[in-house]
């Protein structure tokens, strides 16, 4: 089981959390084409390796935060706040 470092509560078991998918996806303007909107809604990098993703500590503080996690090894590389920009 993964141990996830909640930004507020510290290290907790994975089953206290829900994953909200990829972070930092910019919403297109309403005037944008169907292709841009389809891309925004459905198409993902889905990388094998480093993935920046949102998690919520559902059975803890209830807060959202970001993780930089490796999808192949499940290693967590960094944790940062929702409003922070992605790590370099």
């Amino acid at each position: 089981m993964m141990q996830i470092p909640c930004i507020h509560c510290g290290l907790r078991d994975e089953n206290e959390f829900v994953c909200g998918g990829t972070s930092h996806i910019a919403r297109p303007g309403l005037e944008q084409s169907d292709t841009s909107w389809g891309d925004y809604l459905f198409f993902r990098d889905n990388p094998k390796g480093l993935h920046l993703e949102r998690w919520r500590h559902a059975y803890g503080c209830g807060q959202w935060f970001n993780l930089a996690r490796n999808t192949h090894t499940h290693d967590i590389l960094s944790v940062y706040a929702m409003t922070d920009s992605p790590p370099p």
Partner: protein
Amino acid sequence: MKYSAWSLLRGALSAHRHWPVAWRDANPKPRYDVIIVGGGGHGLATAYYLAKNHRVTNVAVIERGWIGGGNTGRNTTIVRSNYLYPESARLYDFSLQLYEGLSQALNFNIMLSQRGLVLLAHSRHDLDAMSRWANAMRMNGIAAELLTREEVGALAPALDLSPRARLPVLGGFAQRRAGTARHDAVAWGYARAASALGVDIVQNCEVVDFIKESGRVVGVNTNRGRIRAERVGIAAAGHSSVLAKQAGFRLPVTSYALQAMVSEPVKPLLDTVILSPGTGAYVSQSDKGEIVMGAMLDLFPSYAQRGSFAVTQAIIAATLALFPSFSRLNLMRQWAGIVDVVHDSSPIIGPTPLANLYINCGWGTGGFKAIPVGGWTFAHVLATGHSHPLAEPFQLERFITGRLIDEAAASGIAH
């Protein structure tokens, strides 16, 4: 060599030393008409139907590991066609029909056992939803039968049927033609039949990138050298996005681990497949006697073929709520496959943004049941350049046009 009672008898008289290898483990040639990337059930079935239905035999199936070692060897072997929408019903029922004739067609016993699939209703709302679901199936010409609580109990006496059960069983519905098939036999049956028709099956051959000339794909670079082809098809399930990235485009796919597990073998006690959409749990007993359990996805992106203990625990808890008597069984094996989940839980079978490159993916948690139809329709588009009528609704464009076939809800899959 054709397998038959006669060849078995001959084997008995010659100490079984006359059996040839089932299929040729080929070295890659420099050029093919069609290359299929991915030697799972879908890739092997595609190669077989290319050779059989379209007479395209200069074909290679290239596989990173060994054939049938990915999701084809990591599922719960259930075959069924209990879908809601007409497009899906047609597709999956054709698959089940092909499964019904597959042992004969391939001359390889895939051990299809049409032991039926029973879906459990745990509430009045479940009963209503299942009436709608069963009726939709009948409208699509697929037999479905609503069951009372007593009828469910007669089919699976080991279920906890008491009204005070954690998940009381109020009724359900059955698809009698559903069942299980032997996963290795499906992979090897297709491999053997394709190989006999001249297809090269190349193992330990990993694609590192796609060769492009003026925007068209003309082959692949692999760890075993450069292979050129007129057309390239990807059938790589959970690794579809990795290959798409090498080719230079993205897919509407997220990869998740889907796990399953088996108990130690016990005497026959469950001769149907039980599915509880409320918990996501599906339970059957293998021919070896193991209780086979599966349920929900590990709901975070993953390429690790192991599955999280948190979900292992949830699957076992859901199974024991249905079958309390299983609580003293020892767990023997647990595994996970990386599945390619798309937003509407329906597949993608057709062209990609790159000319000459085609893809068969998006089967998500239900790829095994679709192996025959995935191969049949993918072979059609690879051979002719046009989508098979069954696959026309299942194109990549639907994620731009919004014409989704949202089986995520319709088939009652909990994930």
